[in-house]
């Protein structure tokens, strides 16, 4: 009987010691708590860089960080938020899937006191997120539009590949570009279709545009994945030397293609800078800061063959 009691006491002691050890290890690995990084899609290298950089910076600042992939689906995004709210995260670094559809998720987090910091893509609200760090897509595409006119000329047919239609970036880029090119009546847009920010879709759409409009002189793409897809379609059609391709993002493969003279230009968005800054904002919030600017427009720079040497690795060298 006495032996049984001793065994039981020893077991309790061991379990208690193991629990204490586990808690101490967890505390040592994440003394400040957990930060969630919710990314619209990990099917695009640009967003992978955005998510990984935000996660890495959060870990550097002393947090445990996890990336959640919304797969460009607001329902999946909502499920991610439910999971995050239930799991005791202290802040969310958020790349939304839909400017309107994502607001409800942000409000749910806000209701339980979890701050949300939007990165790159915005939500159409000024009282849901704590702060939104957004690429100034419009201004970047005004500059790309001016370069487009200079490169393609003031006359001729061209096409446009739009991104996801529910995303504000799609329209800010398109409107910035058109604020310039629409001023030149000789430039005629013969096709405007969504490639959903996706390389395979961009290729598919470009193939069909080329069949219907073989004389286009240029194509403006709402992101670099679609630009790479469009370029692939042009190579397959033997038109890569005739049609000027313009992208947007500053993805590494496009920056290399600009250096090689395959793609004319892109807009460098600095995803690493935005992701790092958002993680730092979350850290500042957790430490007590509350006065954040609601929307911060991060300038976009145009990358061309002339200045491509200054850019690489999703930013300035």
């Amino acid at each position: 009987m006495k032996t049984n009691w001793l065994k039981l006491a020893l077991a309790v002691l061991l379990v208690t010691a193991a629990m204490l050890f586990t808690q101490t290890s967890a505390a040592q690995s994440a003394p400040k708590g957990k930060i969630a990084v919710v990314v619209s899609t990990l099917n695009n290298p640009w967003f992978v860089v955005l998510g990984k950089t935000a996660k890495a910076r959060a870990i550097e600042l002393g947090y445990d960080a996890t990336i959640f992939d919304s797969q460009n689906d607001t329902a999946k995004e909502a499920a991610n938020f439910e999971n995050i709210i239930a799991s005791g995260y202290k802040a969310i670094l958020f790349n939304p899937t839909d400017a309107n559809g994502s607001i409800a998720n942000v409000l749910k987090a806000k209701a339980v006191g979890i701050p949300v910091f939007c990165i790159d893509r915005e939500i159409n609200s000024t009282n849901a997120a704590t702060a939104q760090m957004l690429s100034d897509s419009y201004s970047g595409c005004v500059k790309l539009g001016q370069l487009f006119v200079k490169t393609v000329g003031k006359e001729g047919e061209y096409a446009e590949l739009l991104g996801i239609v529910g995303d504000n970036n799609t329209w800010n880029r398109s409107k910035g570009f058109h604020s310039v090119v629409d001023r030149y009546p000789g430039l005629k847009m013969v096709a405007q279709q969504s490639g959903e920010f996706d390389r395979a879709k961009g290729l598919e759409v470009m193939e069909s545009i080329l069949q219907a409009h073989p004389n286009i002189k240029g194509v403006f793409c709402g992101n670099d994945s679609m630009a790479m897809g469009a370029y692939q379609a042009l190579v397959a059609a033997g038109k890569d030397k005739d049609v000027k391709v313009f992208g947007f993002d500053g993805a590494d493969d496009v920056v290399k293609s600009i250096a090689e003279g395959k793609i004319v230009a892109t807009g460098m968005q600095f995803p690493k800078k935005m992701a790092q800054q958002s993680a730092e904002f979350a850290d500042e919030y957790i430490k007590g800061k509350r006065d954040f600017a609601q929307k911060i427009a991060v300038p976009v720079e145009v990358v061309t063959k002339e200045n491509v040497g200054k850019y690489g690795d999703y930013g300035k060298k």
Partner: protein
Amino acid sequence: MRAVRWFIAIVVIAGVCWLFPLFHVVTLKTAAAEKAAVTFNATLFAETFWTNQLVPALPKCSPAEALIALIQTDPAVAKKKYSRGAGGGDSYFYFVSGAGKIIAVSDDEISIAVTAGSTNAEISLQTGLIFGNALRDGTGLLSPSDYPNSQDYNDISAALNHIVETSVLPNLKAQAKVGAKISFAGCAEVDDEAADLKPLKVVPVRAESNPAP
């Protein structure tokens, strides 16, 4: 008795539905009008902003002669003293006014020397098609944080540029002659210092030229 109960139940249900209707019937015309009422009108906003905020702010412009002198000698000091930044990037803005002498006129620009005795183009008033956000972002009077949808904020730029093209440039282009004196106020965006500082490219808010003596 049963009929009375039914009557009371129907009256209660009807009363609740009247107080808290399950749906509203709205004509398509009314719905369209309501939607238009909440849609941001960038043109109207820009016109009001121009009259009520931008023009009254012109006395706060940096003096062109002092700014140009600093740009010539030390652009970094000029930037520190007179510019305002945008979002943490490399580009920045000047909100500037001054007077000078027209030294060249083309379809897209009026070149002005503001330094006494200078014959160099130190200011380039932009008179072609106006693009970009110099007027929206150059004064510090507007902030993206005030607009739930950035598309509205961006539409303001296009509307302000339209006002310049339609209300400022026609008179200016008609008056501007080489050798004439000119006074001006406007905003300059500097993206690339090598290309944008010498001369400083200014989108005019106000510009008046007098014939050469």
